[in-house]
């Protein structure tokens, strides 16, 4: 890599955004972003889930085109319409999901698609020489002929970084690079990031781990609801100041009145030392009529916990008791039979059979109720479904395909399915993801109505506001464990975020002994 890549006056920002805005179908996800990233710096980007970090980085990387504003690289206004165009101007992204060919060697992966060749034959010696030059420059200790599939994740990320550098990248976007790494590898990757900056490259680091951002970055930008809150030198920031900047909205009137809960109400669900894939020992209980919120970051293990409770993932240890008795039948059928219901995270992948009608989707998990000796009683089905759809406020012919409904109405169809059978526990995983504001209120009403009927409710949500608006009690999940339980006055956005973002060693009530990020 020659030094001409690293030219440009030090005063001029390497990449600059001026008044950038982006919206999807009427929803504004970024508005009026002014951001300057200095050459050779490590620039952090933080914010809650959905604050717009990923969208912002995608605009720089050429995966999205901004609706408003302009993007300047070395002072030159540009529009990237594809990642290839961005790469042509030195901008590369290291995604969370690595895109390497596991069966090829390190050097082959690094030069994949741009092998030095003569007459169609790869010039191996030349390839090796270039690889050595690249490694010498970055100081990575990687063997050129090691097979990538056998490397640990942190080393694979190094390969990914080298590949970006081999393609001439001088501005590297890293989206949650340490999310999949364990302690030692995190440190290795941090060293990679530092060495990139030392060699004059610029790194835009998106991370949920505030400690990491504070340790690595020179400058940090905080986003909230698609707005830029501030950009400041990390030296003048602390974890608490960043968290404060990330939150700060008043709770609107989108949420219905919470029902009363009685501390003496029967315990509906009791989970004891639950261990399952992604769940590392979880204990809690839910009372009748209570709405418990499971908060935490994406990937913290919230969905894994509810799937382990529901029986849709293998339970390795621990007990789940519903209504005082251990479940008689195992598995999902047993869970449904005992009065549990899970509205899964993804309507389209896990909830609905999109090719089928609304009616069939409502009755799918409860056909026994409207059938006799295996025969579906069509009249009973029609009457039952029309009643249920009325309850969940879905209008229109129920014989039409469920795929034609809006996201909100599709979600309501799943609630109708839940309502078809008397329940004791309802689990709703991300109930309003991709749902328009109008339907949101209707879904919140449904959740509160469930609770009012003495059903225990667990709501999993990445939207802290939603959790606060609905739940009587909040459990914060991190690394497959419950690391904080918040109730009453302590149930604030700040406390949830502090717990969710907390790093090992950070002091808070539950004394989190969190090692794996």
């Amino acid at each position: 890599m020659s030094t001409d890549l690293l030219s440009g006056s030090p005063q001029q920002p390497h990449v600059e955004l001026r008044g950038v805005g982006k919206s999807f179908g009427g929803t504004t996800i970024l508005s009026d972003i002014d951001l300057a990233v200095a050459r050779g710096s490590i620039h952090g980007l933080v914010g809650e889930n959905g604050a717009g970090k990923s969208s912002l980085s995608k605009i720089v990387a050429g995966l999205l085109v901004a609706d408003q504003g302009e993007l300047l690289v070395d002072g030159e206004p540009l529009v990237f319409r594809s990642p290839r165009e961005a790469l042509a101007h030195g901008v590369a992204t290291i995604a969370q999901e690595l895109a390497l060919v596991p069966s090829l060697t390190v050097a082959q992966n690094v030069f994949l698609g741009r092998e030095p060749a003569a007459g169609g034959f790869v010039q191996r010696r030349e390839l090796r020489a270039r690889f050595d030059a690249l490694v010498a420059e970055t100081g990575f200790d990687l063997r050129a002929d090691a097979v990538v599939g056998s490397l640990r994740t942190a080393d694979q990320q190094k390969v990914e970084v080298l590949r970006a550098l081999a393609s001439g990248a001088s501005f590297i976007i890293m989206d949650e690079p340490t999310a999949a790494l364990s302690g030692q590898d995190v440190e290795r990757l941090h060293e990679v990031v530092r060495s990139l900056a030392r060699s004059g490259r610029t790194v835009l680091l998106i991370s949920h781990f505030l400690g990491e951002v504070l340790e690595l970055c020179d400058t940090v930008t905080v986003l909230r609801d698609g707005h830029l809150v501030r950009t400041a030198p990390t030296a003048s920031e602390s974890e608490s100041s960043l968290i404060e900047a990330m939150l700060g909205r008043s709770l609107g009137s989108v949420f219905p009145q919470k029902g009363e809960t009685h501390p003496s109400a029967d315990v509906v669900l009791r989970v004891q030392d639950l261990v399952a894939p992604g769940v590392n020992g979880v204990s809690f209980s839910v009372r009748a009529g209570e709405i418990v919120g499971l908060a935490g970051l994406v990937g913290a293990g919230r969905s894994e916990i509810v799937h382990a409770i529901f029986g849709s993932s293998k339970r390795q240890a621990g007990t789940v008791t519903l209504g005082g008795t251990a479940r008689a039948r195992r598995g999902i059928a047993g869970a449904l039979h005992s009065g549990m219901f899970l509205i899964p995270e993804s309507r389209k992948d896990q909830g609905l059979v999109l090719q089928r009608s609304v009616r069939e989707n409502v009755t799918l998990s409860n056909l026994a109720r409207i059938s006799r000796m295996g025969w579906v009683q069509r009249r009973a089905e029609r009457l039952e479904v029309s009643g249920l759809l009325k309850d969940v406020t879905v209008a229109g012919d129920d014989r039409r395909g469920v795929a034609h409904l809006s996201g909100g109405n599709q979600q309501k169809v799943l609630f109708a399915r839940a309502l078809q059978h008397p329940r004791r526990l309802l689990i709703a995983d991300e109930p309003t993801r991709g749902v328009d504001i109008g339907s949101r209120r209707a879904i919140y009403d449904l959740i509160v109505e469930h609770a009012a009927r003495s059903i225990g409710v667990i709501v999993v949500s990445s939207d802290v506001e939603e959790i606060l608006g609905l739940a009587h009690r909040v459990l914060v999940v991190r690394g497959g464990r419950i690391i904080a339980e918040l109730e009453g006055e302590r149930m604030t956005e700040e406390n949830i975020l502090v717990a969710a973002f907390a790093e090992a060693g950070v002091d808070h009530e539950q004394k989190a002994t969190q090692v794996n990020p």
Partner: protein
Amino acid sequence: MTDKQPVAQATLAGPRFRQVQWRSVAILFPFLVLFIALSIGSPRFLNPLNLLNILDQQSATLMIAAAGTLVLISGGIDLSVGATYALSAVVAGTVTVSSGPVAGVLAALVVGLVVGLVNGVISTVLRVNSLIVTLAMSFIVAGVASLVTGGNLVVLFDRTDFAAIARTPFLGVRTSIWIMVVVVVVIGIVLARTTTGRYLYAAGGNPEAARLAGIRVNAVRILGFTLSGVAAALGGIVDTSRVLSAQASPGTALTFTVLAGIVVGGTSILGGEGAVWRTVVGVLFIALVGNGFNLLGVDALFQQITLGVILLVAVGIDAWSRVLRR
């Protein structure tokens, strides 16, 4: 409430219009056009004898395709039906010669059941792609059939008791057709009216959603494969009774006619969509093409080419309708 009324009306009107999806009845138009064209073009076509003859010839294919529809809807594919058909035929013939027709029929049905069950278990419990499982199974089954016959033709020309299975006239129609009608109607009803039918659709349409709804997806799929195996055996029995001879064969032509009929009928190769009546129309459409070519004296070479083109068009429409829905 009053000012909301027009909005509700508007949302109702759209879906109502869409309700009879063109896709579900699409096969009827080419079928009717071909039927009318053949009626006009050939005086021998629209004749009860010719039409009943077509049904008699197609009875095995129709039964196997009806059961195969269940497999496709549940998200699998069965390429072993041709070989299973041939093995059942030779088993039925061989056992009939040695122990009588009742034993022959039962033995053949058991063969079909076992092949179908093995297909289902391997493809679901062991999670091997059913395309590969049933392809491998078709080689095994065809090999076993050769072992049974020793390479000879199984001849039953003197067994009038076995011939009675398919050749007895009842109300002017042969029993081969009656058996086919009963089997196809039963399979059609199972799919359209029972909880099992619903589960088949769900298992193919979205297996994860079906699982989370408490459906035993594997059991449902195994049932589909088992019925497919039994139907193939029944087809083998009926055809052996019709022609009174059987021989070992991989049955590739039958397998592809069956699949072509199902797909031309509009059942999705990706699962979750389809109906037995559509398969019936699809199989008969292909049969009419063959019959028409014979009646009009067109070279048989063109039949194959035409069949291939029809199949491509059908699969193309299926894929295109998915693209449009995105």
